[in-house]
Each structure stands twice: as structure tokens, then as C-alpha cells.
């Protein structure tokens, strides 16, 4: 029994340290550069799961200026890591593999910088989130409608560990939906000030009339309403990394031969 437990916990740790290469491709953004045209994304590396309490706690040990007692008001709201039972840690081992939440954008950005990466850009995150395979339009609609339900009531006190949703994109990135919403590098893109957060805007933002497009619009709008100091229980994050230069060239070459990711995108 102890051996089994050890094996289980080992595999969880392995999963967390995993990062996955996302092949280049394109997707339909609700905020396209050119109206009606898919947005191209170069290949990059994305964490397989969201950053956990355990991982974030390690960051704080090495970077005490980001602990709740040291962090200046400039960088985080009052509820920063409020759910942790004490200053340095999440307390309960059961929470170790739960995505860390109530982290401000600044803290998330600093964590990823410390890891040698960065937060994924809005377009990178959205592209990864759209690399989903469905067997039929009906299945895609069913998924999207569940997604809309989830977005309308994201649990700010959720306790499930990473990897527990069973939702995985085409290349194995887990829980992009279903656990927490996630910070992206440019969650307020330059257009954000011009958009008001009313229903009409959501309607206009819809790139398509599909359920998936509607879920996506809700996600964009919600994200734009955050402030960089926001510390809500709805929000966690994962990190992205640039490919090493030589690898970038290889993957660009190979992606020219593979069909555009948007071709395989769920049908509307």
C-alpha cells in the first residue's frame, strides 16, 4: 500500500513538471487582426497542467518578496493566497496538487519568469483551447453548452487536483476548462478599452453562431474585466515557453506540410 501511494504521488509530480509542444497553426479569434481571417500562432511550449499550490509554494520559498506578508499593494489585492492556511504554505497536503488561485497577474507573471518562461499570450492560450477534437457537431455543441454552464458559475473554492477534469486537448494539455480560469500575458489586449461588457458586445464578438463561439466570447469578456492585481479564487495560471531557436525553425518547416489546425477545428 505505501508503495502504491508513492507511485501515485510520483506520477502526479511527473505530470506537473510536464510541458507540451504546441504545433504551429491558426484559429478563429473573436478579436481577429483581420476580420474573418484565422489568426496564426507559431509553435510554443505550454505547461500540461495549471500551476499547483505545491509548485507555487516552492516559488515563494525562493522568492520571499512574493509571500502574502511581503508583497506590496502594487502587486496584489488583499485576498492574495487568502485560502492558504498559513503564511508560507497551503497547509493541507490534500491541497498540494490543486491549482493555485488568488494569485495576481503580477505574481503569475513573476512565477513564469522564474521558471524561465512567461505567461501564454491570449492568442496562444485560445489556440491551445481550440485544439479539441470532437466526433460530431452535436458532441461539440454538447461540450460547449457545458462550458457555458461552467463559465457562468466558476467555483471560486474548487478543491480538485490538476488533471482531474478528464478534458484534454489534441496534444495532451489538460484542464484548459473545468477547474479554474487562467491568466494570460495580455488579458487586456489593446482593444479592451473600446469594448463594453454588455450583451450586445458579446453578440458582436461572436465569430460564428456556434455554441463554442459563444462560450469563447464569455471567456474573452470575463478575462477583460480582471485587473492585474485581481486575486480571485476563479483564477489560476500555467506557463508557456519559447521553443529553442533551432527547434523553432524545424517546427515551422514541418508545420507547412501539416494541414492548418483550423481545418480540423470543430465544425459550426
Amino acid at each position: 500500500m505505501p508503495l502504491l501511494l508513492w507511485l501515485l504521488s510520483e506520477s502526479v509530480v511527473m505530470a506537473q513538471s510536464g510541458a507540451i509542444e504546441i504545433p504551429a497553426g491558426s484559429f478563429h479569434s473573436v478579436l481577429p487582426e483581420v476580420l474573418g481571417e484565422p489568426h496564426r500562432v507559431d509553435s510554443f511550449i505550454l505547461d500540461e497542467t495549471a500551476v499547483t499550490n505545491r509548485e507555487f509554494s516552492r516559488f515563494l520559498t525562493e522568492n520571499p518578496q512574493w509571500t502574502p506578508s511581503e508583497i506590496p499593494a502594487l502587486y496584489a489585492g488583499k485576498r492574495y493566497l487568502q485560502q492558504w492556511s498559513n503564511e508560507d504554505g497551503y497547509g493541507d497536503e490534500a491541497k498540494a496538487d490543486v491549482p493555485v488561485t488568488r494569485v495576481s497577474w503580477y505574481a503569475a507573471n513573476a512565477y513564469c519568469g522564474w521558471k524561465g518562461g512567461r505567461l501564454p499570450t491570449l492568442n496562444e492560450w485560445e489556440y491551445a483551447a481550440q485544439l479539441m477534437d470532437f466526433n460530431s457537431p452535436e458532441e461539440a455543441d454538447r461540450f460547449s453548452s457545458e462550458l457555458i454552464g461552467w463559465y457562468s458559475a466558476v467555483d471560486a473554492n474548487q478543491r480538485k487536483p490538476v488533471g482531474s477534469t478528464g478534458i484534454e486537448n489534441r496534444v495532451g494539455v489538460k484542464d484548459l476548462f473545468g477547474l479554474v480560469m487562467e491568466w494570460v500575458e495580455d488579458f487586456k489586449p489593446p482593444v479592451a478599452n473600446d469594448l463594453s461588457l454588455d450583451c450586445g458586445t458579446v453578440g458582436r464578438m461572436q465569430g460564428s453562431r456556434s455554441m463554442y463561439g459563444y462560450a469563447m466570447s464569455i471567456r474573452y469578456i470575463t478575462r477583460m474585466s480582471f485587473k492585474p492585481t485581481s486575486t480571485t479564487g476563479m483564477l489560476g495560471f500555467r506557463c508557456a515557453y519559447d521553443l529553442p531557436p533551432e527547434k523553432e525553425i524545424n517546427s515551422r518547416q514541418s508545420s507547412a506540410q501539416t494541414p492548418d489546425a483550423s481545418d480540423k477545428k470543430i465544425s459550426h
Partner: protein
Amino acid sequence: MHLIKKSPINGGPIMKTMKRIFLLSSLFFLPLLASSQHSVTMSNTGLEASDAYHAESLYHMNAKWTNQDGESIQLSDYQGQPLILVMFYGRCTGTCPVLMQRTWKLYSEIDEEIRDRVQILAVSFDYKNDTPEALKAYADYEQLDIPGWNFVTAGHSDIRELAMLLGVQYRERSDGHFEHSNLITALDSSGKIAVRSEGITGDLTGTASEIEELFTTELQ
């Protein structure tokens, strides 16, 4: 309360000048801090107090920037004096030349007696292309190779953090150019955002006098 040990100011003529200014101005600055009603906890000795930044001070940012001469700069190096910040990128052919010209215009509208104490930090979004060498060439080309002007770059997440602190939005387009806000910000001598001028049109006289006031406050 947050304490950060002030890093030693490193070499380079700019840094040396700044150190002198810092030592001078801190004489005026410390009593000012002590009398303010902000949430700064002052310690008993003046020496330690200079390490305590206001909760909203951008000096908390400990990113290391590299200027066009390869020198290292931190925002807290400017402690005790106002600082004008502008974010741009060197290859920009759209609004950036206008934004930088506007920054120069603002600079030239500041009272001559103050102007040689004005510090400008122009931060590039384009960490891939705007190397110190490229920034040097840019400053020369735009005839902005002026004492007190620093053109700097840093790591990706540092640049994004500063943009977020200033409220500058930017996004790299697929053609490698950037969509971005056009914003000139001035920090007061404690590192807090004091003046913001958005856009690339309009009169700058008001902004210039607001910045002059930051220097007057500093010397009171």
C-alpha cells in the same frame, strides 16, 4: 510592510550622477516621506527608511534593464527624483516616431533650469530585436542621444510587468509589429505614478508644468 535592500548602484557616468542626485535629494526626501500620510512604516534610523518604498511605488520592481550603452538600470536607481517613462519599439513605423517626438517635445517644454535634471526611460516592447546595439542606433538616428535619456530592454516578463504597472496595453501582431497604447508617464520622486499623458495629439504645456511641479515638490 515591505522592505527591499537597495542594490548597490553600479558604474557608468549616468549612475554616478544619479547617485549624487540621490544623496542630495534624499536629504529633502526623507522628511517628506515621514510627514506623508501614506502607509509607509518608518523605521527609527533614516538609513533604513530610504529602503522602504511606498506601497504603490514602482521601485518595488526589481527588474534589471539594460540601456543603449550596455549599462544596468533599476527603477529604484531613480529614487529621490522624478522619472519620465515611455514604451515604444524601434522598428515602429506607425505611431512610435510620433510618440517619441512627442516625448522630446514634452522634454523641451520643461523649464530650462529643470531640464538637465530630467530623466527619461524609453522602454522597448520588442525584446527580440531591440538589443542595446539596436537601441543605440535608434537613439542616434532619432537624434535622441541626449544626457538623461536611456533606451532600455529587459526580459520578456519584465517588460510586460512594467506595461501592466503603467497601464500600457500592447500586443505583437503576426507581422512582428505591435499594437500599443501611446502613453507617457511620470513617476514622482518616490516612484509613484504622478502624471499620465495618453495619445499622440494635443497640447503638452499642462503636462510639462505638472512634471515641473514634481521637481518643485521634491525640493520643498
